[in-house]
């Protein structure tokens, strides 16, 4: 061993007495840099529990934990961060669609309890809650594109001269680009009445696998092309991307996939047990609820017959919704699938008299989805004059192919989808159209896009207009007399219109189209059965299986739910599909914890 090596430990010791090169310790902790990525903070109120932060975290440092009761558009979960795993990359902050998640610039924290380093920001109180400094998503920066791929529409001037579809539809490239915006949080699934597997089919579209997307869609919706065109899209209203940007165009993506395939049977890969062999089901009413029941029971081996009063299935989506929104070939394709599944379709057959009783004897169960077919009356003087018509009749006549005339000038009374459809159809028939609505435009139950489209097509909307009477003019036209309304507060929510007396406005028109609403008509049922299933308003109450107060009679659609749209009718149909199987002992009774509208798949 050399002398140098022998003395080395002593010379190292000598260094201990020389001036240090490092900066001496300062009292206290130095503050983090202004944009330091320290402990997380979360605004509990703004966070929607979408879980996108947990999804993106590469270290699996975030768990979503229940904190509040789930509500529409909020899962009630909040992210809990495990600092044994977190590497402070801030990806979670950068992706957070609501912008609720951030990081403080605090980084020092001493605790003897290791578990303390797993906490739920915004829920478990911390000294750095509300910190001004730290890491925030940069203004205008987002990992996810906030802008929706725009949808092409026919020019309004062109539209009113044609019955062609107004919406053009996405190209393949546009659909893939739009689908890539989805963060797959799934908030939309809870909001969709039928609980469609939305993130799954959007992911399949993004991946270029349209066949998979179509199969996922048909898991629990057998009229998706209709929904892809006219759905009220409750899903989009809760989309997490919509909090700070445009929600995903879920409806248009569904439309894109369903339009791609003409022969559905050859693409759909149905694999469910035929548990219903030898059992018979009668469905009364061929609307979306009836079609849903028929399809999902038929593929399970049940012998299903649909009885429909009109010459075509589809219900209000056939006789009500105009063809420029939902064209006939789209509907026919979906009916063809029903036939391919083995459903027996009897059209032009209104079930009446004692038939229901007979059907109950000859079938294992009966489903009623006869909708709301009776328009409410205007109730004002002059209603019975020729030229005062009901929107439902007008739309039905047009859709069935009858000659329909509305003259040069039309007033539509009402503010829902039916009123808007009647107005836009009248525009296409060549009339100048005004909508008279009792409340404010914000109160209109019609879809905002529909209202915009109608206005773009030249429909004038007069809000707070109360119809007073209709009179005949000397030259055989109609004088629609209305009065202005003031809005008065109500203890039950939206304010109510009240007539301002002493002012009358006159509008000379050729047609007054009444579209104030519709109710159920049960005059086709034997009275003793009607008494058991329906109330005075015509509504039918069902249990968690979709069964009415009469054993073996199930019901769904507009006469059961209070949302009266196509997807809710489909959801009611799905409930009855499971309910009928439970009633017949094929499926076990529903557990308390199971959702009432089942989440089903047929693959």
């Amino acid at each position, binding site marked *: 061993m050399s002398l140098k090596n022998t003395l080395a430990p002593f010379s190292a010791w000598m260094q201990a007495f020389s001036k240090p090169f490092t900066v001496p310790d300062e009292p206290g902790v130095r503050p983090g840099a202004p944009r330091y990525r320290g402990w997380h903070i979360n605004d509990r109120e703004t966070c929607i529990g979408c879980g996108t932060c947990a999804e993106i975290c590469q270290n699996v440092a975030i768990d979503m934990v229940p904190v509040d009761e789930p509500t529409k558009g909020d899962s009630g979960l909040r992210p809990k961060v495990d600092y044994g795993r977190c590497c402070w990359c801030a990806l979670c902050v950068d992706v957070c669609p609501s912008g609720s998640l951030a990081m403080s610039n605090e980084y020092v924290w001493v605790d003897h309890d290791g578990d303390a380093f797993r906490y739920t920001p915004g829920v478990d109180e911390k000294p750095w809650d509300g910190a001004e400094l730290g890491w925030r998503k940069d203004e205008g920066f987002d990992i996810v594109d906030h802008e929706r791929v725009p949808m092409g529409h026919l020019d309004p001037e062109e539209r009113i001269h044609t019955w062609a579809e107004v919406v053009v539809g996405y190209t393949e490239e546009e659909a893939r680009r739009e689908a890539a915006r989805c963060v797959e949080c799934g908030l939309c699934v809870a909001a969709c009445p039928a609980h469609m597997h939305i993130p799954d089919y959007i992911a399949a579209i993004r991946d270029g696998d349209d066949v998979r997307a179509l199969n996922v869609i048909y898991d629990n919706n057998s009229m998706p092309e209709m929904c892809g065109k006219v759905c009220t899209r409750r899903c989009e209203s809760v989309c997490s991307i919509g909090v700070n940007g445009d929600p995903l165009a879920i409806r248009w993506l569904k439309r894109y996939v369903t339009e791609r395939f003409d022969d559905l049977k050859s693409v759909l890969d149905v694999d469910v047990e035929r548990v219903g062999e030898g059992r018979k089901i009668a469905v009364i009413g061929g609307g979306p609820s009836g079609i849903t029941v028929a399809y999902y029971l038929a593929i399970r081996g049940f012998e299903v017959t649909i009885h429909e009063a009109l010459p075509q299935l589809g219900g209000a989506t056939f006789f009500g919704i105009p063809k420029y929104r939902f064209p006939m070939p789209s509907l026919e394709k979906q009916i063809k699938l029903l036939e391919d599944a083995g459903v027996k379709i009897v059209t032009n057959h209104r079930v009446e008299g004692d038939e229901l009783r007979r059907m109950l004897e000859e079938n294992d169960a009966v489903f009623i989805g006869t909708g709301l077919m009776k328009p409410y009356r205007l109730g004002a003087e002059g209603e019975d004059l020729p030229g005062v018509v009901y929107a439902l009749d007008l739309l039905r006549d047009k859709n069935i192919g009858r000659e329909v005339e509305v003259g040069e000038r039309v007033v539509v009374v009402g503010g829902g989808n039916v009123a808007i459809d009647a107005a836009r159809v009248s525009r296409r028939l060549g009339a100048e159209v005004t909508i008279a609505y009792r409340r404010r435009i914000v109160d209109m139950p019609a879809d905002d896009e529909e209202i915009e489209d109608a206005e773009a097509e030249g429909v004038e909307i007069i809000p707070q207009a109360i119809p007073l009477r209709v009179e005949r003019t000397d030259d055989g036209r109609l004088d629609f007399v209305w009065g202005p309304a003031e809005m008065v507060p109500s203890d039950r929510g939206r304010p109510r219109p009240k007539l301002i007396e002493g002012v009358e406005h006159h509008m000379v028109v050729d047609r007054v189209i009444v579209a*104030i609403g519709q109710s159920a008509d049960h005059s086709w049922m034997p009275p003793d059965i009607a008494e058991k299933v329906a109330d005075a308003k015509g509504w039918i109450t069902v249990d968690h299986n979709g069964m009415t107060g009469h054993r073996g009679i199930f019901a769904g659609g507009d006469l059961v739910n209070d949302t009266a749209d196509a997807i809710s009718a489909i959801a009611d149909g799905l409930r009855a599909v499971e309910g009928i199987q439970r009633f017949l002992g094929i499926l076990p009774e529903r557990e308390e914890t199971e959702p009432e509208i089942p989440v089903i798949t047929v693959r």
Partner: protein
Amino acid sequence: MQFDSIEEILDFAIGKEMEAHDMYMDIAGKVKRPGLEKTFLELAQMELGHKARLEQVKAGDLSGFAAGEVQNLKISDHLVDVKPHPNMDYQEALLFAMKAEQRAHDLYVDLARATSDPGLRELFKGLAKEELKHKLFFETEYDDVILEGN
């Protein structure tokens, strides 16, 4: 119409409530629509409630009367009256009830106008207000159910 005392007026009003009760009972026995019989029976029951309230007033308890202003939505004012018939539906039932309450209200307003006795006038006004309250009940239902989309 001539009344000599408050008692007489209240007896008249109580008689009117009984008439309304009997009329609703009669219609309940005739309507065919499921559930509507129950609706009319409930209406008849309600009239008995009104009658009881008036009896309270007769016994000297004025708290039975509607206090404060009663909202008048004026929905029924420009709607056409309907005649009860066996195939009535819910809309017609509401229309009928609104109109009946409107008529009762108008009657008391006329009586209040016709009398010169300030005490009687106040009583008639109170009765008119009661009827307006009943009308408001049906008008609210009409606004919520029938006119939901309008």
